[in-house]
């Protein structure tokens, strides 16, 4: 009688969260924290960027666009690789949740691609004298934007959901060749766009406070991407898992995640 019996809980493994119901509950619990982190980091990054970082010697205050331009450009490249990775996992291992994640990432990646292009135009006008030039980096980033739109259009055009996921994975895989092209474009071609602001080989060529502001904004965008992708993937999970027992329990209020 006195012997303490362990409750029969299943061992927690990484695969546990591959079940859409578990993932739905987990992301629901994480969301408030992710939004809080996003807001805190954004406030800190903007304060550093506008009130601590000095005016640039050559570009004046126009350079302050960097605090959203570079993080947006980094995020759109990273998100494409993450999208391609999960799309291929979903295809290769027939993992539904991975495919749902890939679909949830696409609009956010497209948004960041657009933001990188837009802020680039608003930075290029005062510094280069042109809103747009057909430069290797700008053109390859524009292609990335269209790859995101193409992926979204393709997966929505095919009615059979799993076939749509597979076609999307193929497009994402082929399109991922574009990401290293964007990254190395400033090295491979003579471009108007400046080279990498920070690299692993040499010390950064910018003031420490500018760099810190830019990195804080990068983490802010990172947290934002997690938050908004999780919000969207929860919607996708419900759309696809409707008519399953756990969603039924959820909508009837008998399940509380």
């Amino acid at each position, binding site marked *: 009688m006195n012997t303490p019996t362990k409750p029969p809980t299943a061992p927690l493994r990484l695969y546990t969260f591959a079940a859409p119901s578990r993932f739905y509950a987990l992301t629901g619990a994480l969301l408030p924290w992710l939004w809080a982190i996003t807001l805190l980091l954004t406030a800190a990054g903007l304060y550093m960027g506008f009130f601590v970082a000095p005016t640039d010697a050559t570009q004046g*205050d126009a350079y302050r666009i960097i605090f959203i331009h570079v993080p947006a450009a980094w995020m759109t490249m990273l998100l494409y690789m993450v999208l391609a990775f999960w799309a291929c996992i979903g295809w290769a291992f027939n993992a539904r949740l991975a495919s749902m994640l890939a679909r949830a990432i696409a609009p956010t990646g497209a948004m960041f691609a657009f933001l990188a292009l837009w802020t680039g135009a*608003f930075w290029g006008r005062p510094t280069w004298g042109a809103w747009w030039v057909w430069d290797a980096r700008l053109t390859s980033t524009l292609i990335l934007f269209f790859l995101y739109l193409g992926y979204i259009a393709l997966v929505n055009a095919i009615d059979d959901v799993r076939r749509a996921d597979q076609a999307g994975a193929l497009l994402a895989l082929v399109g991922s060749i574009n990401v290293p092209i964007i990254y190395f474009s400033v090295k491979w071609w003579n471009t108007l766009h400046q080279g990498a602001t920070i690299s692993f080989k040499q010390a950064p060529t910018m003031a420490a406070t500018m760099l810190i502001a830019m990195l804080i904004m990068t983490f802010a965008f990172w947290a934002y991407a997690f938050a908004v992708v999780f919000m*969207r993937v929860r919607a996708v999970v419900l759309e696809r898992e*409707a008519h399953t027992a756990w*969603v039924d329990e959820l909508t009837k209020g008998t399940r509380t995640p």
Partner: protein
Amino acid sequence: MKWNNASEFFAMGGYGLYVWGSYAVALLLMVVEPVLARRRHRQALHDAAEGSAHGSKT
């Protein structure tokens, strides 16, 4: 702090249009996107509830 007053801050050394034109669009997109995602989630919950209600009738 390098700004002496608010108007100097908003002028951004003459680059106000470009700096604020960038930040305004960033703010707009990053507010609209979560709102749309939230709406989609609510719609999905609503549809799932409707579907299960119809399902239980039959």
